């Protein structure tokens, strides 16, 4: 018997499927591309149109007023580094890319995560999919993404979203499973509607874990956005790629450190923005 016939090649089935999608749903993918490009372009323009110092001052002031002094200091240092390293434009491009990718990841992962915490069967079905999404090397799904959306920022964002969904989804499920049962019982016993229970009991109780999920989503998305430099997404990823291909140690290092700065900035700001109000309130009460 010929062992050749047992050889398994999923690509043999997937590649035609992608081709078929590309051939028959091209208008859909084109429209999606256009939508994402528009949002992304808008954010990028907002960050790059004003002079760098104006953006920096505005960001620092916003962080200071909305969160606290600490967040403002982190913002100042991170943005100053990006500017002084001569990577301002690339940094803002990356920032825009990650922001859009994270927003979409959260929009997809949050409701699915709640569903998974409500229905065990759904969770069981989703778990292996998440495992695949997280462990398949990201380069692999850059290929179909490029085939469907062609080169540029959109396939990069799609690949980033695929990478960012699993941590957010898993931690959303965990967060909702951890909501104390007595608080849910309280909601039912007081005659709260399912919507009130969700908004007034479950989400506030789940917030700390949800923040961890958001943090993971941001950091993994950022790591992925850098890889997406390979498919022409621009930004800091492109600088890293250039540094690698030209063996320019200095450029690679500067771009790498700028990525770290952006990561720290996004992490502190997202945490602060979602938690800030409560920290402020309990500090007042204490």
């Amino acid at each position: 018997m010929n062992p050749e016939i047992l050889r398994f090649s999923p690509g043999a089935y997937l590649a035609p499927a992608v081709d078929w999608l590309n051939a028959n749903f091209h208008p859909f993918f084109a429209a999606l591309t256009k939508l994402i490009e528009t949002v992304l372009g808008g954010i990028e323009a907002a960050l790059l149109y004003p002079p760098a110092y104006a953006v920096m001052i505005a960001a620092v002031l916003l962080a200071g007023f909305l969160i606290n002094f600490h967040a403002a200091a982190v913002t100042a240092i991170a943005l100053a580094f990006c500017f002084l390293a001569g990577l301002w434009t690339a940094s803002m491009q990356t920032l825009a890319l990650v922001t859009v990718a994270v927003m979409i990841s959260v929009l997809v992962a949050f409701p699915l995560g709640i569903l998974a915490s409500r229905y065990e069967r759904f969770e069981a079905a989703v778990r292996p999919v998440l495992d695949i999404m997280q462990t398949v090397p990201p380069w692999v799904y850059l290929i179909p993404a490029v085939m469907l959306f062609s080169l540029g920022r959109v396939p990069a964002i799609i690949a980033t979203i695929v990478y960012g969904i699993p941590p957010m989804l898993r931690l959303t499920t965990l967060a909702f499973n951890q909501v104390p049962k007595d608080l849910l019982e309280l909601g039912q016993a007081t005659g709260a509607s399912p919507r009130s229970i969700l908004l007034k009991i479950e989400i506030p109780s789940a917030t700390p874990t949800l923040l961890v999920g958001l943090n993971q989503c941001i950091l993994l998305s950022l790591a992925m956005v850098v890889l997406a430099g390979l498919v022409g997404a621009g930004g800091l990823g492109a600088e890293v790629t250039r540094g690698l291909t030209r063996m320019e140690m200095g450029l690679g290092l500067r771009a790498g450190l700028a990525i770290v700065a952006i990561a720290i900035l996004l992490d502190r700001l997202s945490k602060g923005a979602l938690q800030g109000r409560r920290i402020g309130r309990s500090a007042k009460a204490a």
Partner: protein
Amino acid sequence: MNTVKEANDVLLDCQNVWKIFGARSSAAVKAVSDRGLSKKQVLQDFDCVVGVSDASLQVRRGEIFCIMGLSGSGKSTLVRLLNRLIEPSLGKIVVKGREIATLNAAELRDMRARNIGMVFQSVALLPYRTVLENAAFGLEVRGVPKDERNETARAALAKVGLSDWISRYPSELSGGMQQRVGLARALAADPEIILMDEPFSALDPLIRRQLQDEFRQLTKSLGKSAVFITHDLEEAIRIGDRIAIMKDGMIVQVGTAEEIVTKPADDYVAEFVAGISRIHLVKAHSVMRPVADFKTSQPHCDVGALLKASPEADIGELIDITMRSDRDAVAVVENGSIVGVVTTRGLLRGVAGMPAGAPSAA
């Protein structure tokens, strides 16, 4: 006539309610209703646990009804059946004349929001809300405007003595104060019935007694009915107008504290009440001797000259009266005539918990 009025006064009526847990509970329920299987048989034949077995009780308007049982006796299940947090397997629960099993989701929510409040052992305060916001929670989910609900919540917090704490967070409060917030939250919604699921069990004894007294006073002054779950018979006696004793999912006895202490239905209840002080429970009418009987044993004693007490005076009061007089007996007076005499022997018998009607050793 009298029975009709009484029936109207029953706020919460629980008739032959069963709750069976387990994978094959529906088959078990059918077996119970068709063949009258016992709890043990259900466990053997269907591998199902009977949480509550054939429980019937009535809670009247303005009454505090205690359900006492040890852990695993089904008391927490029973109280959750009363507001349908748990669906009954069999039987009928009628709240204010409406059978709650027939209500749809919205009607049930409305009934829980307006008619049945609940206070939990774990308090279940929302940690990210202030005391005021917690107390107003029930009104908030009912859609009451902010100013109005805060006003009501403030009044409820004042009733439990927490006016100075309204802008604090639950974590800044002691356990006793947290439970007061839980009570205020239930009171703010102004329900007719409050279900109390072991609310004071986790508190230290001193705070507990204080809260027990406050709770009773508050409930009575507001004219609320309450179903109070506890594992502590003394607590049940302090608080309850009537007490139901639960064992293995069944209600073994229902009665006033005095009835339960003086006439326990079975050995299990008797064992429970053995350690209970009877001084404030046993009343003159159950320890007094008939006047004629007293006269034959002590012919030269002038009954009319004895100090007097009412038939409702408890042993503690009778002891006080006896100590004030130079005689060893107190006359029990009802409607101006002497209906019996309580002797020191009678008092001792009452304290020791010997049956009142039985002939004394003499």
